[in-house]
């Protein structure tokens, strides 16, 4: 048995893992709380700003109170929600879409603006 045939399974496994490295979760997809950046929480597979009990949430009862994390603009998590008319809220029906495309989270934010 040649050394190449003995190492073939290992090389295949390393190749598979390397290939999988390109389909990791984006910055807004999560399975664990610690998958998210500080200040965000994991809900329904996405990193979102934690719900806050404020007057704004009372004015907009249709909103779930969870807004998906945007990139770069950390200073406006709550105020942007009121003007987004619920587009950024996380619904359970869309959770199946967390399949790696979330690695470009800025695309959703651009459309929201």
């Amino acid at each position: 048995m040649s050394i190449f045939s003995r190492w073939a399974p290992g090389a295949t496994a390393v190749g598979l893992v390397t290939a999988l490295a390109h389909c990791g979760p984006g910055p807004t997809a999560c399975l664990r709380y610690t998958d998210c950046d500080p200040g965000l929480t994991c809900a329904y597979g996405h990193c979102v700003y934690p719900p806050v009990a404020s007057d704004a949430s009372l004015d907009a009862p249709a909103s779930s109170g969870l807004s998906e994390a945007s990139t770069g603009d950390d200073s406006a998590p709550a105020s942007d929600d009121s003007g987004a008319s619920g587009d950024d809220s996380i619904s359970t029906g869309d959770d199946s879409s967390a399949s790696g495309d979330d690695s470009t989270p800025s695309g959703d934010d651009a459309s929201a603006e």
Partner: protein
Amino acid sequence: MKRLLVIATALLSTAPTAARAQEYLLGADATASSGIEGGGTGFFRTRTRLQIGADLRVDEWPDDVMEVGLLAEVEPRSGFGGYLHYGRVLDKHIVVTAGVLAILAPASLYGACAGLTYRLPLSKHVQVVLGPELDFYFLGSDLPDGTVIWQVRVQGGFRVDL
């Protein structure tokens, strides 16, 4: 004289043989692993994990192995924990394991795991270890409510008989 011979023979036949103590067989390993994981929201690449561990066997039951070790998740996020496995040597080169593992920092995660390891000998005391591992996390402060995380990992590394 005949009586003395009988007594000496009796003493020799009943003399205790030297008791042999159980011998512990130690090993140490260092591995790295990665793979895919999911929990109801699609498939992701798992965090890359490094492990160092020790395994202990008793020579009377050389096929039963207890493994204990430390693990560190290194990317894209970090975490630290440990594991405890029971292993059964199925073949000279194949070991099947099952046990528990935990991530303890920065948040807790507890689960169970099972794996299959192939030991490819490099020398008399050194082997390359390679194989799949299946992990389930179902408890812990790092787990959103109602979520069970599963992971399928491929791990590889080195093991040394000490």
